[in-house]
């Protein structure tokens, strides 16, 4: 399996975020996105996920399920938790399980130690606990490509370890991970720095 990105360009708010970006990520590889704020890490992840449309370039997943789109084969965990405050932890996960077609609720609850909180409404959870709920999606439904935007924010040390373990297992089974993070995860990965290319600037005439 291979994620291939060719000559990707992104314009947001009249500004050129990045242009001419190409990368290749093989199965079992971790790509770490580094760069200052506003460099386009989040934009890149959203473009790959298919949440946003690129202004230029191509994104393709080779060797995946040909019957599914790339969006249907990836997990995207952004800065927001996608959790409904008036649903319980279990109900939130069960919804995503049903929606994303599949879902091992027990495995998801265990992945970040949320089993004890399963019956509580998300409104009473702390920020860190809600983050764990969002990340539990990764263990809920099996998808080959993981796109993580600052996944460690708000996590305590134990949860961070759990995340690293989950990521490690995913890589070992041939999955692809792209993670934007400032933190040292302790996992071997390729670094991609955004925001230093000379093409930063206004779209040329």
């Amino acid at each position, binding site marked *: 399996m291979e994620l291939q990105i060719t000559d990707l360009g992104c314009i947001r*708010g009249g500004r050129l975020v990045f242009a001419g970006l190409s990368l290749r990520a093989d199965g079992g590889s971790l790509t770490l996105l580094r760069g200052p704020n506003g460099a386009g890490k989040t934009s890149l992840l959203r473009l790959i996920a298919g949440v946003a449309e690129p202004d230029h370039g191509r994104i393709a997943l080779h060797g995946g399920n040909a019957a599914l789109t790339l969006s249907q084969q990836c997990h995207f965990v952004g800065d927001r938790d996608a959790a409904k405050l008036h649903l319980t932890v279990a109900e939130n996960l069960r919804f995503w399980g049903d929606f994303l077609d599949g879902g091992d609720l027990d495995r998801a609850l265990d992945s970040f130690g949320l089993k004890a909180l399963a019956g509580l409404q998300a409104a009473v959870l702390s920020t860190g606990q809600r983050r764990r709920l969002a990340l539990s999606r990764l263990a809920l439904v099996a998808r080959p490509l993981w796109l993580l935007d600052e996944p460690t924010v708000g996590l305590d040390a134990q949860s961070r370890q759990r995340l690293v373990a989950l990521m490690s297992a995913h890589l070992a089974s041939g999955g692809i991970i792209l993670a934007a993070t400032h933190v040292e995860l302790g996992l071997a990965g390729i670094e991609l720095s955004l925001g230093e290319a000379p093409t930063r*600037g206004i*779209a040329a005439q």
Partner: protein
Amino acid sequence: MQQFANPRRFLKLIDAVEPWAWAFTVILLAVGLYLSLVVAPQDYQQGETVRIMFVHVPAAWMALLAYLDMALASAVAIIFRHPLADIAAKAAAPIGACFTFLALATGSLWGKPMWGTWWVWDARLTSMFVLFLLYLGYIAIWHAIDDPGRAARIAAIVALVGCINLPIIKFSVDWWNTLHQPASVFRIGGPTLHPAILAPLLVMGAAYLALFVTLHLTAIRAEIMARRLRQMELARADEV
């Protein structure tokens, strides 16, 4: 990415055409007004006030035409993603809104001597009023969204949905009108148009069309300039 590849050439085109467009418009308006105010005969029922028709009816035509222009530009924007199409649509809206307002105001003025009231909810005026609301909604969308690319897309959707809605609104309001009013003796369209009235009306129509095109070109140029200004400001912010 050829974001602003074309506008430079288009600006040159507008600069070349503009003086001629204004000249043409002024001539047509002068001829049309002369025909309307001096040459056209009085109406046996309405006397001199029928002359407001020559200002009102072409305004109504332009109000509708401007919206269709906006919708067409929006369709081109969605299908071909041509940056000028967004600009053209955005520029047409305030002009169309003004024509609509003119039609409503002159419609009211025309009707006052006849109906005794400043406004009446007949089919045509009511439809025109709703058209005015459609323009306002469209213009509001542009102002409500900061990102120009996103605003362009959303506005295009609003324009197209409104365009689909237009004939439905016309049909609905006509139906509503026949339900609530018996066949009115007086139609705001006036008596059947005979040649003496038709010619000035058509000339005024052509004059209004020329006016719309000229104003539209000017507005497009203004919008392109405004975007360039913003780009320069963004570049300035990036330098710091």
